[in-house]
């Protein structure tokens, strides 16, 4: 994690935030652009979930992480508070590692 990366991320994130509030302002983006942007988090967050759960470098693998994330899915589905979701998921993975 370099300082250059942090600067680029900071500038990029700020550029996107201000592009909406200051650049576009009370006008609006064209509907197709809005629709694509609205769908990005669903695609990217899902991809991040499976990446953090089932991949190690270029390899696909199933290990103790899958148990923790499965617990997180059930906990979110049961509307458990988000902080507790994280605690339960970590605990499930940690315990699985300890006993296996």
């Amino acid at each position, binding site marked *: *994690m370099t300082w*250059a990366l942090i600067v680029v991320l900071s500038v990029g994130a700020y550029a996107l935030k201000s592009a909406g509030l200051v650049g576009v302002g009370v006008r609006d983006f064209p509907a197709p652009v*809005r629709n694509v942007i609205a769908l990005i988090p*669903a*695609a990217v967050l899902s991809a991040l979930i499976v990446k*953090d759960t089932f991949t190690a470098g270029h390899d696909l693998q199933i290990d103790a992480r899958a148990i923790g994330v499965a617990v997180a899915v059930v906990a979110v589905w049961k509307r458990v508070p988000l902080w507790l979701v994280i605690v339960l998921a*970590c605990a499930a993975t940690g315990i699985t590692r300890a006993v296996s």
Partner: protein
Amino acid sequence: MGRAKPPSKATDDWAGIIGPALGLGFAVFAFGLSFGVMCIDAGGSVPKAMAMSLFVFTGASQFSAVSVLAAGGSAASAIVGALILASRNAVYGVAVAPSLTGSLPYRLFASQFTIDETTGMTLAQNTPQRRRRAFWVTAASIYVFWNLATLIGAIAGSNIDTQKYGLDVAFAAAFVGMLAPLIVSPRARRVGFAGAVVCLAVTPFVPIGAGIIVAALVALVGLRPTADAGPVVSTGGPA
């Protein structure tokens, strides 16, 4: 014997905003702790973790970048993935713009705080004055809690065996929480499922972390008009 004075309308207004804003701040605290810990785990330092939370200040993108770096991905993959995820903040900016009219410096300052939680809270209010208040109160709450939690997490992270306590699934668990309120429409659910499948399918063949970027292309189905596009803004969880 005095009777309790009924709360004035103004006090009531503030209470209705400050309560939920503090609730969101508390939720964000858990995310910030995990961010601080994992930032150290991914080769960061306390100052770097703090710079991320103070200046990047959009949680899901910070998580995404650190997650890619932790997996051994390149800086380019980490940056592109994180910024694609941050693009929604541009839409949020448009959504809150009518409530944040003012001078250019005012709007430039407000831009830094245009994220999921502030947008959700702002749009949930019913008068222009309440919308403006909600934006700033939520911004203050999230900014303080997020940065405080990052600091505590980063300091603690230097002394924690993340594998032993299963902390390497903290991000995945947080992502599950962020995703849930975003996939209420059938179309968003299909996009989410497709994004996951695409990411796993390309992982063996593309640079580490680039699977996230390839998966984002699935969102281009949004170019096809549909009746169930769903809301752009969710108040469900910090992201």
